[in-house]
C-alpha cells in the first residue's frame, strides 16, 4: 500500500498515456458535452427568470450572473463527468460488499495541485469581475448632479420625499428617465429593506441612521418596490410602485404635487 500510494491516478506512464485510458476518455467526452449544457441551461433559466432590466445596474447584475454561471460550468461539468463515469463503471448490488478495487491510490499530487490552482484562479476571476461592477455602482453615489430622494420605511409602507423640490411627498415613487438618482434611506420603526426589483438595487432602512444607494433608471414604465426585510405583521404587503417617466412628465408631476401640497 505504501509503494502504490504515491502513484497518480492520472499517470501510469509505463502502460499507456493517461489520456488514452477508457474511463479518462469517457470523462473528457462527458465534460466537453456537459459544460455547454450546464452553462446554457444555468444561464438561460436564471437570466430569463430575472425579467427585463430597467437600469444599467440591473443589466450588469444579469451579465454577472451569466458570466459566473459560464465560469462555473466547466467545474460543475467536470465534477458531474467524474461522478457519472464512476457511476457508469462497476456497480455492485447486494448485501455483501463487492471485491476491493484493483488499486490503492491515496493521492495524486498533480491532480490536487492542478485543482487548487484552477479553483484559486476562478475565485480570483469572480472577485475581480465583481469588484469592477461594485466599484462602478459605488461611484454612482458621489454623482453631484444626481436627484436626491429621501425614502422612509415604516410599518408597512414607503414614503418618498423630494428635497430638491421641497414639500413634495408621495407614496408612489416618481423618477425621470436617464437621470441619476441617489436615495437616502431610513426607517421610523424597525428595519426594512428598500428594493427596486427591476433596477437591481437594494438597501436596508435602519431606524436612526441614513443609508444610501444610487441608480439611473433607463426605461420608462412602472416597476416594483418591495420590502426585503421581515418587518412584522404585514411585511408581505409593504410594496409600492415606481413610475419612471420622461423629464417633462416628471417636472409636470412635481409641479402638480407641489400645488396640491400647498393647497393642503
Amino acid at each position: 500500500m505504501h509503494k502504490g500510494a504515491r502513484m497518480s491516478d492520472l499517470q501510469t506512464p509505463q502502460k499507456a498515456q493517461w489520456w488514452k485510458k477508457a474511463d479518462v476518455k469517457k470523462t473528457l467526452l462527458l465534460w466537453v458535452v456537459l459544460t455547454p449544457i450546464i452553462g446554457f441551461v444555468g444561464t438561460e433559466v436564471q437570466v430569463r427568470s430575472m425579467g427585463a432590466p430597467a437600469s444599467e445596474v440591473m443589466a450588469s447584475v444579469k451579465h454577472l450572473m451569466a458570466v459566473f454561471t459560464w465560469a462555473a460550468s466547466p467545474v460543475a461539468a467536470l465534477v458531474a463527468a467524474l461522478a457519472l463515469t464512476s457511476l457508469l463503471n462497476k456497480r455492485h448490488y447486494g448485501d455483501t460488499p463487492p471485491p476491493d478495487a484493483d488499486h490503492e491510490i491515496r493521492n495524486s499530487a498533480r491532480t490536487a495541485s492542478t485543482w487548487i490552482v484552477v479553483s484559486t484562479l476562478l475565485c480570483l476571476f469572480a472577485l475581480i469581475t465583481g469588484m469592477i461592477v461594485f466599484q462602478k455602482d459605488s461611484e454612482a453615489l458621489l454623482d453631484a448632479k444626481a436627484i436626491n430622494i429621501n425614502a422612509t420605511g415604516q410599518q408597512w409602507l414607503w414614503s418618498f420625499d423630494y428635497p430638491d423640490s421641497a414639500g413634495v411627498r408621495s407614496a408612489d415613487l416618481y423618477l425621470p428617465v436617464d437621470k441619476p438618482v441617489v436615495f437616502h434611506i431610513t426607517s421610523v420603526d424597525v428595519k426594512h429593506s428598500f428594493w427596486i426589483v427591476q433596477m437591481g438595487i437594494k438597501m436596508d432602512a435602519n431606524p436612526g441612521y441614513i443609508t444610501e444607494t444610487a441608480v439611473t433608471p433607463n426605461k420608462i414604465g412602472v416597476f416594483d418596490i418591495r420590502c426585503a426585510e421581515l418587518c412584522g405583521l404585514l411585511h408581505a404587503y409593504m410594496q409600492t410602485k415606481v413610475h419612471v417617466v420622461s423629464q417633462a412628465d416628471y417636472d409636470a408631476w412635481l409641479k402638480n404635487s407641489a400645488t396640491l401640497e400647498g393647497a393642503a
Partner: protein
Amino acid sequence: MTTIMNRPASAPGSAAGRKPLIERLNIVTAFLLGTVSAVVVWQLALKFMPETPETSLFFNREDKISLLSLIAWFVGFMTGIGALNGPIRWAMGKDLSHSENMFLAGKDQGIKRYFRYTTDHKVVGIQYLVTTIIIFFVGGTLAMLIRTNLGHPSGGWIHPQAYNAIVGWHGIVMIVATIIMVTGPFGNFIMPIMIGARDMAFPRLNALSFWLIVAAIPPIFISFFTGGITTGWTAYNPLASQAGLGMNGYIAFICIFAISTMVAGANITTTVIKMRAKGMTWNRTPIFIYGVVASVALALPAFPVFFLSQIMSGLDRAFATSFYNSAGGGSGWLYENLFWIMGHPEVYVILLPAIAALMEMAPVFTRRPLFGFNLAVLGIAGICGLSILVWAHHMYISGWAPLLNAPFMLTTELISIPTGMLFLVLVGTLWRGRLWMTVPLMSIFALLWNFMIGGITGIYLSDVPADAFLHGSMYVTAHFHYTLMGAGLTGAIASLVYWFPKMTGRMLDKKLSWISFWMVQIGFNVAFMGMFMVGLAGQPRRVESYAAMFSRGNLITTIGAYTIMIGMLVLLHGVISSWRSGQKAPMNPWHAKTLEWTVANPVPLENFDVLPVVTSDAYGYGKAKS
C-alpha cells in the same frame, strides 16, 4: 421496621427498599419540578412585582415576569433531572461512589436509562437521535404549513401573525435540528468507539449537554402560544423588542442551547485530543472525527456570542436598555454583527460533520482508499479558518460598513477553494472505485449534486452587486436549503443508514430507505429549483402572500415539498419498524475498517474489554496491481 424508624419523618410509609434520591430522578421529576418552579415564580412575581405605567413602550413588567419564570423552569428542570447531584455531592465533600457512578452510566436499567441523567455516551447518542427525529418532525410539519399557505398567491388561510410565527419557529427548530443531527447522535454514540475510547472525557457533561436541549425545548413551544417568534429565526432588533412575549421563549431557548453546545464542544474536543487509542496518530484518525471536531471547535467561539446577543436582547426588552435601540444610542447593526459572527460559522458547524461522515463512508462503499486524506483535512481546516472571517456578507446591503464589503467579498469567495478540496476528495474516491449501490453511496452523489448548486449560487450571493439584487429574496432561502438540507441533511440521513446497525443492532429496511431517498432527493430539487426561480423574479423571503406572477414557481415548490414530506414519512416508518423488528445486524455489515465495527451488538457498557491498538489508518481497501 428499624430501617423505617431511622428514616426522616418527611418520608412516611415508604417501603423498606426505598431507593436513594439520586435513583429516583428522571424526566418526570424534571418536568414536574421545572413546571412547579416556573408557576411558583410566575405567581410570586405577578403578586409582588410593581406595575409599570400603561404608557410604557415596552412590556417591561410582563417581560421581566416571563423571563424570570423561564429561568425558574430551567433551574427546576435541571435540578429535577439530577444535573446538580454531582456538584452538590462534591460541595458536601462526598464524591459519588462507584455503584452510584455505575448507576449513572445506566447499568442494567433497560429502557429507563434513556429517561434519566445517564452518562453512558451510547445512551446519550440514542437520546440525541430520537430528539433530533422529533425536532425534525416538528420543523417539517411547520414547513408543510408554510408551503401549503404559499401554494396559492392569495392562499392566506393562515393569519399573517401566525404565519410569521410559523416561519420563525420553522427556522429556529430546523437550525437546532441540523446543528445536532450529526454530532449529537453519531458524534456521541459512534465517535468514542471509533477512536477506541471507553466513554467521553467528561461523561456527566455529556449528559448535561443533552438534557440542556430538552430543557430548552418547552420554552420554544410555549413561545408559539404566547405571541410566537414573529421575527424569523434571526430575531433582528428592533423588531424583536417590538415582538410579543413569545420572544422571551426564543431568548431563553437560545441561551440554554448555546450552553449545551459549548459544553458538548468542550467535551468532544477534549475526548478526541486526549482519548484516542494507542497508535491512532492524527494521520490514522478517521476523517469523520476531523469533521466532528471541526464542527464543535467552530461552535466554541461562535455560540458564546449568540448567548451574549440574546442576553442583551433580553435586557433591552425587560429593562429597556439600549443595546440595539438607536433612539437610546444603540444600534440594530450591533445585533446583526453579533448574530452573524455566530451565524456564519454555524452553517459550517452543520455542514462539516455531514460532509465528513460521507467522506468516511466513501471508501467503504467504493472499496478503495480515501483519496486525498491530507487534502480533506486541509479543506476542513481552511473552511474553519475562513468561516469566522466572513460574517458581514450577510450585511452587504445593511449599510453598516460599505467600505468593508470588498474585504468580506474576498474572504467569502476564498472559501470556495477549501470547499473545492472536499469535492475533489469525494469525486477522487468515487473514481475507479467498485461502487456498492447503497443509500450511503448514492447520498454521496446527491451531496455532490446539491452542494454544487448550493455552492455556485453561494458565489453569486457573495458578490456584492449581485447580492444587492438577490439579498432577502427567495433565492437566498433556496440557496441555504441546498446547502443545509441538500448537503447537510443528506449526509445525516446517510449516517443514519450507515450506523443504524451499530446503534440499534438491526438493519434499516433497505426498500423503504431507497424509496425515501429518491422521493426526498427528487422532491427537494423540484421544490427548491422553483424557489430559485421566484427569487430571481423578485419574490421576497418570509412573505405570506405574493404577486400572481410568482404563482407557478410557488406551486412547483409546494408540490416538491409534499414529495419530500412523503419521502420523510416513509423514512420515519422505516426507522420505527426496523428498530422494533428489523433484521438483526451482524457486527460489521458493511465490512468497514473503523473501530466501531469491531465491537459486538449491542455495544457493551464500556465498549472494549481490552483497549485496541491502532497500526494503520482505516482506509486500507483495494489491492495493488501486481
